[in-house]
């Protein structure tokens, strides 16, 4: 059952797109911010600053987007009795984790080797951020699979509501440097915590004040719970349409 999994995630356009997206974002952000500021909020390298933010964010964003369509995108395969809807989710989860990890290693590896100062990488916070981000995405993906089918209008709303997520997750700024009120608001967003956590793995001097690991894991656990409950209770309806 599991060997088959990777096969059905085959993406059109190939793996190249997986690299093009983060690279173009990082370059774009770097160029713009280099024009308006002299030094990044952390360290001296703009590309490293944005790459750590954007890729940390991608562990959530790319995963959630990919999982939302796992069932609808593999409808044809669900007519085989031995393929269950959860298999399509599991397969995409595995594939996306591997993809984003490879992208992270290649892109961040390249940047780390080209910056002038040696970067000391500390793995535990990075891995914790990845785990939390992907679990939040998994919970949301499971719930959305069901909700998109039952309430098509919700799919549109979801798209509108989550669009500014990129702006408020601290990808191109540090929540710590915001005025206290704005900081408190931003920190309701668990993804902002995840991006902070991810960054601490690359910037030993970064203290990430306001980071609350307990909050992140609570959000991840409750989203997983809601997602699993919804998905299991509506399992039978997922094949129908």
């Amino acid at each position, binding site marked *: *059952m599991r*060997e*088959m999994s990777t*096969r*059905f995630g*085959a993406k*059109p356009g190939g793996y190249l797109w997986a690299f093009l997206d983060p690279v173009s974002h990082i370059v774009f952000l770097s160029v713009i911010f280099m024009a308006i500021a002299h030094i990044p909020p952390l360290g001296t390298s703009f590309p490293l600053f944005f790459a750590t933010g954007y890729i940390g964010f991608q562990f959530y964003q790319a995963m959630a987007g990919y999982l939302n369509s796992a069932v609808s995108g*593999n409808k*044809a*395969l*669900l*007519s*085989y*009795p*031995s*393929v269950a809807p959860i298999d399509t989710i599991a397969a995409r989860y595995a594939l996306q984790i591997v993809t984003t990890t490879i992208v992270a290693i290649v892109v961040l590896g390249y940047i780390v080797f080209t910056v002038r100062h040696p970067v000391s990488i500390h793995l535990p916070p990075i891995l914790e951020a990845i785990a939390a981000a992907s679990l939040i995405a998994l919970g949301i993906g499971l719930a959305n699979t069901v909700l998109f089918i039952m309430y098509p209008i919700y799919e549109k709303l979801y798209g509108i509501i989550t669009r500014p997520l990129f702006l408020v997750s601290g990808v191109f700024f540090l929540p710590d440097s915001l005025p206290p009120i704005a900081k408190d608001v931003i920190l309701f967003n668990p993804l902002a915590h995840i991006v902070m956590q991810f960054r601490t793995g690359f910037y030993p001097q970064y203290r990430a004040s306001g980071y609350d690991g307990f909050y992140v894991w609570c959000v991840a656990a409750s989203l997983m719970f809601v997602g699993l409950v919804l998905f299991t209770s509506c399992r*039978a309806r997922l*094949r*129908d349409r």
Partner: protein
Amino acid sequence: MIRLERATKEVRMKGVRKMIIDDVSVTFPRGKSIGLLGRNGAGKSTLLQIIAGTLELDRGRIIRQGKISWPLGFQGSFQGNLSGEQNVRFVARIYGVNTDELVAYVAEFAELGQFYHAPVRTYSSGMKARLAFGVSMGINFDYYLVDEITAVGDTNFKRKSQQTFKEKLSNSDVIMVSHSTGTLRDYCQTGIVLENGQMTYYDDINEAIAVHESNMKRH
């Protein structure tokens, strides 16, 4: 053998509820091919999905012994972005048969030529049907679930596929949905009529067809 025990299934489509089977107990014996009859919308395809296991019963249970195919239809169930060959590999893996053997068998049977390595979304419906038929013939099932697929392709392919299918039927049974009574008589010995949530089993397909036709006249 496939047995339904006090099985109940109701489907909801756009707010309309429809009882497909209501507290039905029936046994499909091994060694006899069965024609499934019923008016349009009676739930014949739904019943095939229940037997295949892609739909769950609301109440009651189903006992399956033997290897049962997925419901074979015209279009087949393929991922459009993968090539025909990749799709065949996928099916071979999920059914645990030898991948290379199945790929070679389908290549020869479906006669797709170059298209075998092209994405399935570029296929014509005839090519898809040939691929689907080839795959299902390449795996030895005890039960074939057939949904309105009888003859695909040109005359030559039709002859070949009918011959292959008949050969398969010496070891396998088929549960077939078709509106063509000729086809049903051709392949099936026994019949089941699905009407108003009740299933009635007839030892003789001709009897089942007669009952079905008188049902159709009543409305």
